[in-house]
């Protein structure tokens, strides 16, 4: 279980990007939503250890992990699928899947992950993660990597962005399958109603604050009804 206590994050000592975030993630599916620039990705990076909070504590299963490095947190069971996946010159899909799986290179398994995200393993396993991959392909490989990690907490940052409609349904199936397997939590940053619809809980982040956190039934109707306050989201949900 992940717990954030009084998490704040400021850059250059002044601009506050996150302010006093308190929450516990106990459910299997937690969606994080809110307007662009609201602080969603920043929160994900704080959980993964990429950013160090200026204030507050992060607990994983009761253990204070605030001062642990990215690597240490990864090894404690935190995975993070980036909003903008990173490209690598020279490293192939199979290399990254193997690294994600902790060094083991079971080719059949690697192929399995690729198939799950709708990529034909034969065509992709030996490709480099370089500029030749399309945005959607890269996003899917990023998801396959977190599947290979198989950790108790995974944060997906807009996994559906750039993924076509057909795969969207499969994507949701992927999350459901992951849930069955890991018995942990999946946090999904998303603007899509279809993803919010499968969430046990929804976190609504706005201007760096935790504006709402509750069950889907509590939060979703309000999100859909608010007008100017979350026009970005409302537009997307039309």
């Amino acid at each position, binding site marked *: 279980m992940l717990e954030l206590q009084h998490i704040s994050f400021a850059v250059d000592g002044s601009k506050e990007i996150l302010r006093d975030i308190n929450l516990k993630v106990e459910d299997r599916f937690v969606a994080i939503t809110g307007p662009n620039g609201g602080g969603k990705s920043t929160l994900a990076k704080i959980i993964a250890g990429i950013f160090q909070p200026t204030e507050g504590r992060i607990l994983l299963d009761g253990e204070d992990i605030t001062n642990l490095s*990215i690597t240490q947190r*990864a090894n404690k069971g935190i995975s993070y699928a980036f909003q903008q996946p*990173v490209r*690598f010159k*020279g490293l*192939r899909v199979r290399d990254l899947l193997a690294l994600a799986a902790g060094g083991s290179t079971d080719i059949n398994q690697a192929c399995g992950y690729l198939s799950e995200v709708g990529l034909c393993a034969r065509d992709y396993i030996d490709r480099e993660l370089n500029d030749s991959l399309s945005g959607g392909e890269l996003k899917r490989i990023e998801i396959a990597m977190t599947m290979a990690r198989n950790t108790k907490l995974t944060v997906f940052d807009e996994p559906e962005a750039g993924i076509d409609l057909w795969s969207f349904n499969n994507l949701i199936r992927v999350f459901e399958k992951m849930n069955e397997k890991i018995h942990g939590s999946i946090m999904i940053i998303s603007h899509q109603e279809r993803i919010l619809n499968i969430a046990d809980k929804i976190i609504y982040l706005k201007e760096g604050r935790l504006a709402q956190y509750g069950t889907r039934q509590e939060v979703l109707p309000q999100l859909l009804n608010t007008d100017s306050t979350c026009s970005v989201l409302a537009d997307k949900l039309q």
Partner: protein
Amino acid sequence: MLDNIQMNILREVAELDALPTGAYNIRANGQGAARNTTANIDIITKQDKPGIDIFIKLGTKNESVHIPVVISETGLKDLVYNDFYIGADCDVTIIAGCGIHNCGNQESRHDGIHTFHLGKNAKVRYIEKHYGTGTEDRGKNVMNPETIVFQEEGSSLLMETTQISGIDDTYRMTSATLAQGAQLTVKEKIMTTGEQTAKTNFVVDLNGADSKVNLQSRSVAKDHSHQYFDSKINGNAPCAGHSECDAIIMDSATVEASPSLTANNIDAALIHEAAIGKSAGEQLIKLMTLGLTEKEAEEQIVNGFLK
């Protein structure tokens, strides 16, 4: 014949555990150590200067020539001229490589001057690996390879050069002249560490119509090392030239790239790309979120890049 140290070097530069099959000429500490010729490939010692002439009969297919050089004597300065005459329609692989093991305090040095004459439609893959080793406080290991290429009509040369460790100072010069329809691809990989310097210089003259060159240099510069990449492609006919210098710099290393393109024909299409930068922080972070330490992540990135 070869001692253990020399066999180790041979393994590094030519991936050889025993004498190779096919034609070979092994040079150890400035002397010929072993040679084999085949029905199609002849190797003759030069009379006027150190080195050999290698003659490959026209139409020779699927044969290879190994010409490794090992130096294990500190302070040895070895200069050698190797001239290859590759007949028309050949399809052959040439594996050169030089390794220095320096356990003394003097500079060891190998200057290899290789000249390739490719006949019509000949196809050659040329692999060259440079490697140095020795004790901590050893003298410098220096290699200054020079490659001169003449390509006749329709011939193609793929040149793969690698210098990953142990060479303190290198100045590599490559020049090529291409006739009609000839193709040249160079894939260079360099890593420098410590106080090493590596200079590499290409001059390519695309003289024939539809001739084509592709120069790819990938390098990693660590510590205080310095690299200099200089390329000059002259398009003298309707031709295509592409050069690419892609470097990762780390620590306080420095890399300079000075590419030049000259189009002397309106249909010469010449492109240069250069990207020099630190190994992207994003890449390190991504690998760390997969559980690698920063050091492991860096190793993966560098190894992948130079693979």
